[in-house]
């Protein structure tokens, strides 16, 4: 069985089932349906690895599909980006004063 993540990011493997979400809409839905504690815990755990993860991914040719473990890592970074606005700006899962509205992301 191949690993969920590249070896040097193995410590983050337990985040994969919940936060490796490629689809942009599903990822946003995950953010607004998570508690701030869950979001903060994910953010705090991945952020220290993020710079190395970006550098690792950037070694791959963008024209070629990523191996599964690297694709999971990329998806975790997508999720970091999606939750970063909640953590770094809003201090809550949703945009302040946005009621229960979200946009439907199509692509």
């Amino acid at each position, binding site marked *: 069985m191949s690993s969920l993540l590249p070896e040097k990011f193995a410590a983050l493997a337990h985040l994969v089932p919940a936060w490796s979400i490629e689809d942009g809409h599903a990822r946003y839905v995950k953010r607004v349906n998570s508690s701030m504690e869950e979001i903060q815990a994910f953010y705090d755990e991945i*952020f220290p690895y993020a710079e190395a993860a970006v550098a690792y991914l950037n070694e791959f040719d963008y024209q070629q599909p990523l191996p599964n473990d690297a694709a999971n890592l990329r998806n975790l970074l997508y999720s970091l980006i999606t939750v970063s606005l909640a953590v770094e700006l809003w201090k809550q899962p949703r945009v302040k004063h946005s009621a229960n509205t979200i946009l439907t992301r199509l692509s």
Partner: protein
Amino acid sequence: MKHEPIVTKPASGHWIEAYPELGKGPISLEDSVSTEFYEKERQHIFKKSWLYVGRIEQLPNKGSYFTRELSVLDTSALLVRGKDDVIRAFHNMCAHRGNKLVWQDDPCQEVQGQAPLLYCKFHGWRYQLDGSLIAPTRRDLLYNFDAGKCSLASIHCEVWEGFIFINLNSNNTEPLRAFLGELAHGVEGYPFSQLSKAYAFKVELNCNWKIFMDGFAEGYHTPYLHGGALPNLEDAGNDAGNALADSLAIQLKRLHRMISWAGPPAQKSKHSTPTECLVEAGATGLWNKVDLGPLPEGINPGRSPHWGVDSFQFFPNFVLVFWSSGCYTTHAHWPTGPHSHLFELVIYFREPQSYKERLGQEMTVNFLNDVILQDTSPLEGMQAMLNSRGIREFHANDEELLVRHLHKVVADSVSAGENNKGDGI
């Protein structure tokens, strides 16, 4: 690009001086409240104007098609690239008994795909991609059958710079490019097709289409409503060096309008978040600016060194936004009722050259998503109060000139349509 500004602010310091016909008085809100007015808008504006429905990249091959469910027009439009590579539009209905032609599972949902011909699943009639009937089934049962009278009902369709437009007015004689006018001509040559990485969103909102367009027509609200999300606005500066979000240029041309702003710039600032720094991108784009070569003359018409973004609003409901970081966005505002509309947003970048670039695009896309969510609820709240008719007029200042213009050209178009009713149009 010519270096001299093609627009300068009137010496009085107010843009309105260049457009005295707009007047300076309060503006009626009835156009965003009244059900009767909405029906007139549908009849005299939406059913008679060129309307943006999609990009040519959505129809890449002969036989590519997509449908648009457009309740404001009381129709579903079918867009198809023919074997001759011509893009055509049809009412999405079979010429036999009017069955909806192209759909899957739910006839009210939009679809896209690829087909060698068009096939009606009700009685099996088949059409060429140009809309002509190939053959009815059970021809032996038909009376006085004339295949030439059984083509799909066509809709005027033209393409400008890769943007596909339709016009339901069968009497229309004005070509799309002439309709779009000078402001559109000024941005021709922008590398639209090169920026093919598209991130699309949609949302139905409980406010009139014009109320939401107005929110994107002025920067006056930006430091207040978006100050928290865009703290680096203060770094934007502008040629006057004063108010945070004053425009650099405003142009009103017939039915269309544009506004140019300073920023905020797509670059690292003391306000940048840790994740923005990680992927080197923020709300207004990638910090490593993508060089698109010389921009068309109509962009940054004030020729400001601080230029950040231009927004072009084409009548009635299509908006093109150019960002100095090297991406562009489209907005389409489709009424679904007098107090509701569907907002469609697409953000276009070049195809990423690396995973870091892809992550940077993701940052900008997520950020814009959240900034727009700052607008949605306030504008729904505004609509809810407008419906009370507690106030019946609104005030638009000199930075809200586009708002004034939109409501005026809508009112003028509806009046002209009402006055021409006797002409059979």
